[in-house]
């Protein structure tokens, strides 16, 4: 068989797993951003307890490896806390969201702190409440700085979704493995095609991130 017709037979099989890969990607990306904002703001809180707890959570999830967390959430948490997640899907989403959320919370915190202090002072001078200051003045400027990093992390999360095949979710990698078990000789083609599929999914986000980077460096008061 020629390599071209190989691709014709392999690609549809891989694409059967695309659905689960994209689902895990999108759900865990949304949750990661949510976790990032909660922990990022928690870290900036004036209350000591909130600050410390968010700090501990961030350090725990950044200090251990994602793949270990994934195994821990899938195998250990259900036993430890007697929680049964509906499916491995949610265990995976929670592990990825907590891990990348912790990393991104530092981006959130850093961006908010990077907004020039004069902006806060101006807000105070205009007699805004601290919530108004954050909502109208600080936050919109901080988000601009966060976006490029968020784009980068989206690609990181995409790469992380490949790990879910290790705990038994039938994503692209899993489908590929299943296929190569029967068609040994096509192993190189299959894995290379999987890489290409991931690259194609990442491509728009690579462009978007670069665009954000250009935008966010434009006209920001320093």
């Amino acid at each position, binding site marked *: 068989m020629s390599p071209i017709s190989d691709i014709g037979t392999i690609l549809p099989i891989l694409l059967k797993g695309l659905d689960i890969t994209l689902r895990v990607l999108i759900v865990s990306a949304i949750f990661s951003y949510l976790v990032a904002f909660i922990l990022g703001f928690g870290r900036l809180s004036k209350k000591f307890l909130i600050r410390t707890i968010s700090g501990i959570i961030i*350090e*725990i999830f*950044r*200090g*251990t*490896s*994602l*793949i*270990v*967390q994934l*195994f*821990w959430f899938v*195998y*250990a948490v259900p*036993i*430890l806390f*007697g929680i049964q997640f509906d499916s491995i899907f949610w265990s995976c989403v929670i592990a990825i969201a907590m891990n990348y959320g912790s990393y991104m919370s530092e981006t959130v915190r850093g961006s908010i702190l990077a907004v020039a202090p004069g902006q806060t002072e101006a807000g105070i001078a205009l007699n805004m409440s601290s919530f108004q200051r954050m909502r109208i003045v600080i936050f919109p400027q901080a988000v601009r700085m966060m976006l490029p990093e968020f784009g980068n992390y989206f*690609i990181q999360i*995409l*790469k*992380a*979704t*490949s*790990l879910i*095949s*290790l705990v038994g979710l039938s994503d692209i*990698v899993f489908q590929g*493995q299943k296929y*190569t078990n029967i068609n*040994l*000789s*096509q*192993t*190189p083609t*299959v*894995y*290379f095609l*999987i*890489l290409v599929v*991931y*690259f194609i999914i*990442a*491509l728009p986000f*690579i462009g978007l991130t670069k665009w954000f980077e250009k935008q966010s460096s434009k006209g920001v008061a320093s």
Partner: protein
Amino acid sequence: MEKFNWDLFWESFPAVFQGMWVTLGLTIACYVFAMLFGFVWVILKRIPFKPLQWLVALVLEFIRSTPPLVQLFFLFFGLPMLPGGGITLSPITVAILGLGVHFSTYISEIYRSGIEAVDKGQWEASTALNLSTKDKWFKIILPQAIPPTIPMLGNYLIIMFKEIPLTSSVSVAGMLLMAKEFGADHYAYLEPYTLVALLFLLLSYPSALLIKRLEIKMNRRFDKNSSGGAKKLSKGVA
């Protein structure tokens, strides 16, 4: 509902500990490889030939934005099946090559940013002094480019340490694989995986703190010597 069994926790210690040495050794090996290979990208990117530059950029972007797990699978399961014999590599070689090349793409960015951060005047001055290419790089540019990148490179050592468990899927007997095997033998995954997570935390958190301190120290030093000083000077003039 089962509870945490401390006996099993301690029982899993020797196996996981043995895996820890593999994980640590592999981290160092991958890191050294990535540091060295990172230079290859930097040099390739500096060759002034447009098509080659586009090709290098594409390859870099491809390696960087695809999952290292699949890259490992490609090397481990794919290469031996290539038509015409193929190449069979040991798990350790696959791990060093796969993760090393993957991370070299990130590390080359750090090198690049370090080189670009060197003041333009330094290049001009070395041209004006008619220094040879070798002297320019080794005496002027690199001594200024490398020190500020050290904390960032340190960060990558920790990031790499946390990615090493990936190699358990190509049967490198690191911490994760040892824990998995222990779990399969005793039908208890909670204790060994918890131990692995704890060891990761214990090893990576103190190193992260050390690197943060190094970063603060470096920032202070370079603010005094380079850009900070220059800014202060220009302010004084204005």
